[in-house]
């Protein structure tokens, strides 16, 4: 292959990208607002720079600006972006387009949304090469297959002939990395490439990205809000907030001795925890439940779960393990084929329609995405007030007073009562969803990935809120998540699910400490830690064991 010939003449250490005093403005509410406020970046060849910060910090906007691009509704108001001596902001659009793809590449967060579903993967992988006339078709295809192999995609010769929906999310994300690498660019911008993936898949994508960046000596900007991930990938880290630089240092120094309070608060998130509590009599028992969509594939198979009153039971597993289906079966959206669900001593009718108002009130569900769980046309008053009116018959001023009380309970100001969801931040929206569930005064709340769409700092706040509410109101949680850090923080008991079956179940301390069944071990060891050597360690340990194949393949 020609890869060596391409990568060999590169000189490591020469400056590649220089961004000076970059300012970007965004347009909303008929005004321009500054969203990036004077950022300087210097990136050398072969160096990986990590950009971290909560959402709204301007990370993605900076990433795009490094290609000389501003999203619709944004404009680069001042500063300079110079790539390998070329001033990207002054260059013509055609000049910039010639650079994009061939010398600067971009990997987006959601590969599923970035691939064209109507074309085969390999067509899209080599599209840039052909568009820039860099290679003949057959050579480009060979190169793509070689990249698939380096990225450890299964069956590299054939996988390119599939369509995007025929491969898994992790595989697609790796195919997108292959697409970015296909022209052997000097710089790749990774915009949260693993955020949407399961931990077990994330490890493989991270390892593949790191490998290939090393092999080709590509410089990279790695954007993420996950510290543990950036610790594995980056040589140097920049912490951003509100479009300004908070702190910048080489990775190891940054992890060991963060200087700023804000950085330390990011570090502190993962230290949330709770003391062990004794178990209690069960309020909800899932008894040998089997369920399926249609009639062919069983999504749940003989599942048994016991939820003690006033405690938190975490259900963990990767996507497709059936944990959300379990929630749907409990609330009655998916009546099980066999088995029963016993709530407070009495078996629940399987279907939603057969359940009475009182039963519905006592079991509440909070969704993963507050954006879709809240009606965009209803104000906070309507959203929280409706269950009060519906279940308790409150209305008028009394209802408003109670809504205000609930808002204060979830630590929001009551002047938000007239806001629409679009006028709230992600964390505030999730709090409103919690308040809607609390308004029904339930005995058990099923939390379906309630924190996974949120930033780490906001996640911690939501988890703290949920724990406080449990202490004050004695409500029981069934907490569905794929994030082991969350489990450590809040769970009393843990249920591990894999492919529709319960793999392991018991008190947190027992499940999270060895010996584990093989799958639990894979899941636990895949959770990134704040140690820059963690990924290397995990990979060597797995190589030694050899046997255990990760779920992504």
């Amino acid at each position: 292959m020609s890869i060596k010939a391409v990568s060999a003449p590169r000189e490591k250490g020469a400056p590649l990208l220089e961004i000076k005093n970059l300012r970007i403005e965004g347009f909303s509410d008929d005004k321009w607002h500054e969203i990036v406020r004077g950022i300087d970046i210097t990136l050398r060849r072969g160096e990986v720079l990590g950009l971290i910060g909560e959402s709204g910090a301007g990370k993605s906007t900076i990433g795009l600006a490094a290609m000389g691009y501003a999203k619709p509704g944004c404009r680069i108001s001042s500063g300079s972006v110079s790539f390998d001596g070329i001033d990207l902001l002054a260059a013509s659009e055609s000049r910039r387009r010639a650079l994009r793809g061939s010398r600067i590449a971009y990997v987006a967060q959601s590969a599923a949304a970035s691939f064209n579903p109507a074309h085969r993967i390999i067509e899209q992988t080599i599209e840039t090469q052909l568009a820039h006339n860099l290679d003949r078709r057959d050579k480009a295809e060979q190169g793509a297959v070689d990249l698939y192999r380096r990225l450890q995609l299964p069956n590299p010769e054939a996988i390119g002939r599939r369509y995007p929906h025929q491969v898994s999310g992790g595989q697609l994300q790796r195919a997108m990395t292959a697409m970015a690498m296909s022209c052997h660019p000097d710089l790749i911008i990774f915009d949260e490439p693993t955020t949407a993936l399961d931990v077990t898949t994330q490890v493989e994508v991270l390892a593949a990205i790191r490998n290939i960046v090393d092999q080709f000596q590509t410089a990279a900007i790695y954007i993420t809000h996950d510290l543990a991930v950036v610790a594995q990938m980056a040589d140097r880290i920049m912490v951003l907030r509100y479009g300004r630089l908070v702190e910048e240092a080489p990775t190891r120094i940054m992890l060991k001795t963060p200087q700023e309070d804000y950085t330390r608060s990011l570090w502190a998130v993962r230290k949330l925890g709770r003391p062990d509590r004794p178990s209690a009599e069960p309020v909800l028992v899932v008894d040998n439940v089997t369920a399926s969509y249609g009639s062919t594939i069983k999504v749940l198979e003989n599942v048994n779960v016991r939820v003690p009153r006033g405690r938190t039971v975490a259900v963990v597993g990767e996507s497709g393990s059936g944990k959300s289906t379990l929630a749907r079966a409990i609330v009655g959206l998916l009546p099980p084929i066999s088995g029963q669900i016993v709530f407070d001593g009495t078996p629940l009718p399987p279907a939603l329609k057969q359940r009475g108002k009182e039963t519905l009130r006592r079991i509440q569900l909070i969704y993963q995405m507050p954006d879709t769980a809240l009606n965009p046309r209803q104000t906070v008053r309507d959203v929280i007030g409706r269950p009060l009116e519906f279940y308790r018959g409150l209305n008028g001023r009394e209802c408003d007073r109670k809504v205000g009380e609930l808002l204060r309970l979830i630590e929001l100001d009551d002047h938000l009562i007239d806001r629409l969801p679009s006028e709230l931040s992600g964390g505030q929206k999730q709090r409103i969803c919690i308040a809607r569930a609390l308004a029904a005064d339930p005995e058990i709340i099923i939390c379906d990935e309630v924190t996974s769409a949120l930033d780490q700092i906001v996640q911690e706040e939501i988890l703290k809120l949920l724990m406080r509410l449990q202490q004050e109101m004695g409500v029981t949680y069934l907490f569905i998540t794929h994030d082991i850090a969350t489990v450590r923080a809040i769970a009393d008991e843990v249920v591990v699910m894999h492919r529709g079956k319960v793999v392991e179940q018991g008190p947190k301390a027992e499940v999270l400490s060895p010996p584990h069944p093989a799958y639990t071990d894979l899941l636990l060891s895949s959770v990134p830690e704040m140690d820059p050597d963690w990924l290397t360690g995990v990979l060597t340990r797995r190589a030694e064991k050899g046997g255990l194949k990760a779920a992504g393949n």
Partner: protein
Amino acid sequence: MTTVEDHQLRTEDALPKARRTRLSLIRRALRSAPLSAWFGMIVIAAYVIVAIFAPWLAPYGEAQIFPEPYAPWGGQFVLGTDQLGRDMLTRLIYGARNTIGIALVTTLLSFAVGMSLGLLAAIYRGWIDQLLSRAVDVLMSIPLLIFALMLLSTFGSSVFNLIVIIAILDSTRVFRLSRAVAMNVVVMDFVEAARLRGERLGWIMRREILPNVMPPMIAEFGLRFCFVFLTISALSFLGVGIQPPTADWGSMVRENATLITYGDITPLLPAAAIALLTVAVNFVVDWFLHRTSGLKDEH
């Protein structure tokens, strides 16, 4: 875009913020309206005023006959008289009232029928959806004007029949659109949350789904109104629409068509009235669609 919004929300949280009322939103939208939309709105407003105040604005009675048919413009009759000697200007003014009024009622009825069935189909899916959709396919496969002609000649062309027949034929288009838009809303978590709460179907339709399908439906309302209006005019021109002596623009064109051969443009006036209103409504709808569909260029 999320980053922009998020950031802004945070900065705004610090300030006490007045509630954005519907009125202020409308005022802001009006300020940014393009010239074409203003033109459309003014024309529509003028038509509405003429339609409402017809008896006061018109110089003579709607069916008042004078001895001189086909009188020239000027003098006693500003726009002359028609084939029976009725004042043309008076007929034009009353025509606005009749034609627009009937078209509006018809469109409203067709939306009431089309949207409720469309939402039902989107919520229930399954056989209800199949039944309704296939029935609509059958109705749509027959050309609208010919079908309407046939039904009107069978049942007789009273105003009531006219409204019901056109409304039902037209509701097929409304059904298709509302079903498609509602499909996207029905799958949202907040609809499921309402079902889990135990809400009734009517509440879910009215409070959860309807507000979210309104913008495209309002735009469609404007367009459908134009089509209904044109259909009624066409039917009147063909003689099965609004019956004399009720003044109506479509039949006015037909009745005075012979004047064209003498180089008199009088029969074109009602036609121009129809055209102007159609253009005006379309200008407003275009602007509304542009605002709500996100097609606008943000720069």
